[in-house]
């Protein structure tokens, strides 16, 4: 008997398709940046500063989206910035997922003192104000790509741990787990073969959301001037730099903002779409 789910999947499909499309485009841009970027993102032309985008009077055809105050090509910097954004999203997202999910799984399934220990760790960690803690952390490690990823992981692993722990506990109570135990499988074996497959969908959904969050945190850190120190262009850095000349050169801020917004939106819609796909309850 076909039922209502067909209609829901079709609309979710559209959302998934668009989100996936943008992210694929982004990945392509990041990988091919060296070749497709019209100019070297670091090349400066002090005299060619603040040229408007191509469709505005006084534009220079060579710079499609205009230049920033140092005369660097905005489009190329966005393409190279995509590289950093995806690296941060991928590395920080996966690292957070791995650490958070493992601890969550251990706590949720093994219970006992393991659970007590990990839960206390989660409580302590969540008691730190996230932004303040990351500022302190980066003050210790100094700004850079590694420290930013570390800061994101340190702040957000508790989100994974909490959700996965709850899910593992719920799954653990299910009868199919009891039957697996009866069938003589060891505790770890059960955990990996029985619980993990059911928890994976939640992890995947959380992972995509986490990737979006990582890109946002990088933007926040560069707003507080703690982002990547090298010349490497990042969207967050461009937005922070563009802020001072918003009235004269709005494009320096607006285009990276659109790129950031579309990327984070795609990650969240991807996460929502996957959640619909995996979630049997939705009738």
């Amino acid at each position, binding site marked *: *008997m*076909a*039922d*209502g789910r*067909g*209609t829901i999947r079709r609309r979710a499909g559209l959302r998934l398709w668009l989100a996936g499309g943008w992210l694929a485009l982004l990945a392509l841009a990041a990988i091919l940046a060296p070749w497709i970027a019209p100019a070297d993102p670091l090349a400066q032309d002090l005299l060619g500063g603040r040229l408007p985008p191509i469709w505005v009077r006084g534009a220079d055809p060579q710079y499609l989206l205009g230049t920033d105050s140092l005369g660097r090509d905005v489009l190329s910097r966005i393409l190279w910035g995509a590289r950093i954004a995806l690296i941060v999203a991928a590395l920080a997202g996966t690292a957070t997922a791995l650490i958070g999910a493992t601890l969550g799984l251990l706590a949720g399934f093994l219970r006992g003192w393991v659970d007590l220990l990990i839960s206390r760790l989660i409580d302590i960690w969540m008691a730190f104000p996230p932004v303040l803690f990351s500022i302190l952390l980066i003050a210790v490690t100094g700004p850079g790509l590694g420290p930013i990823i570390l800061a994101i992981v340190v702040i957000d692993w508790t989100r994974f741990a909490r959700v996965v722990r709850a899910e593992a506990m719920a799954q653990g109570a299910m009868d199919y787990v009891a039957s697996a135990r009866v069938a003589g499988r060891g505790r770890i074996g059960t955990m990996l073969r029985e619980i993990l497959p059911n928890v994976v969908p939640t992890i995947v959904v959380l992972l995509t959301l986490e990737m979006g969050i990582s890109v946002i945190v990088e933007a926040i850190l560069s707003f507080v001037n703690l982002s990547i120190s090298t010349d490497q262009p990042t969207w967050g850095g461009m937005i922070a730099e563009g802020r001072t000349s918003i009235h004269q050169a709005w494009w320096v801020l607006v285009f990276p903002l659109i790129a950031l917004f579309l990327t984070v939106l795609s990650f969240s819609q991807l996460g929502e779409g996957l959640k619909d796909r995996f979630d049997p309850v939705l*009738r």
Partner: protein
Amino acid sequence: MSFLTIRNLSAELKGHGVPLLRRVSLQVAAGEVRGLVGESGAGKSMIGKAILGILPRAVAITGGEILLDGVDLLQLPPAQRRRRIGASAALIPQDPLTALNPSRRIGGQITDRLVDILGWQRARAEARARELLAEVQIAEPERVLRSYPHELSGGMRQRILIASAFAAEPRLIVADEPTTALDVTVQKQILKLIQAMQARHGTALLFVTHDLGVVSKVCQKLSVLYAGMVVEDTEVRPFFAGPKHAYSAALLAATPKYTDPAASLQPVPEAVIEAVRREVADADRRAGHG
């Protein structure tokens, strides 16, 4: 004149054209109990939902009439249809564990319809509730009215739901497999209770079930359903003596007898399935369905 008359009721899944009900017609007179029987997925509870206006959003009625006390519900505007159903019909749900709102006290869940829809005074509604709880043999009605669903057993909750259904003296009650979710010992008591309440209140009862055993004890008439189409509409006694339709006979054979539980059960033979499928297809063609 029967209180409930359904004529040529058809329904399908929106956008997919998959037929769920095929020109269903049946009547239930006041004081009469009609069984609605069929394998699960045959569409029997869909008919109950159509009458009470609680069809899933993805299902659309494509034809036919549902006359309640002579008025076709399908022609009424939604608000008016709601109020008319609320005033004159009621549902005894299948699973008592999920049919009561966990965060509201029992009393409110019985009196709310009386006060909000029928406009009764609160005191009169509460008296009515106490009176009905006694009628469904619940001890300490005062405590039960103030307690929450999770504090009561499944059987107790089903009694409350039955009381709630009869509270407004509805002219029609749809019982949607009211005993399936209960364990066997409680099923018997609940069946007896429904029978007694129906007889005492003279309500027209549409009893949806897949269990022919229940039908034989409770119903006067029955309709047998296959793939949304009524294949047989008869009195109970002649049916159990010798069902006319091959599918009904096969269905009867596949039902365990209380009298002889050990008898081997024959599943419905393939040939019979083929025959009834063809019959459904012919009926569709005749009615213009491709």
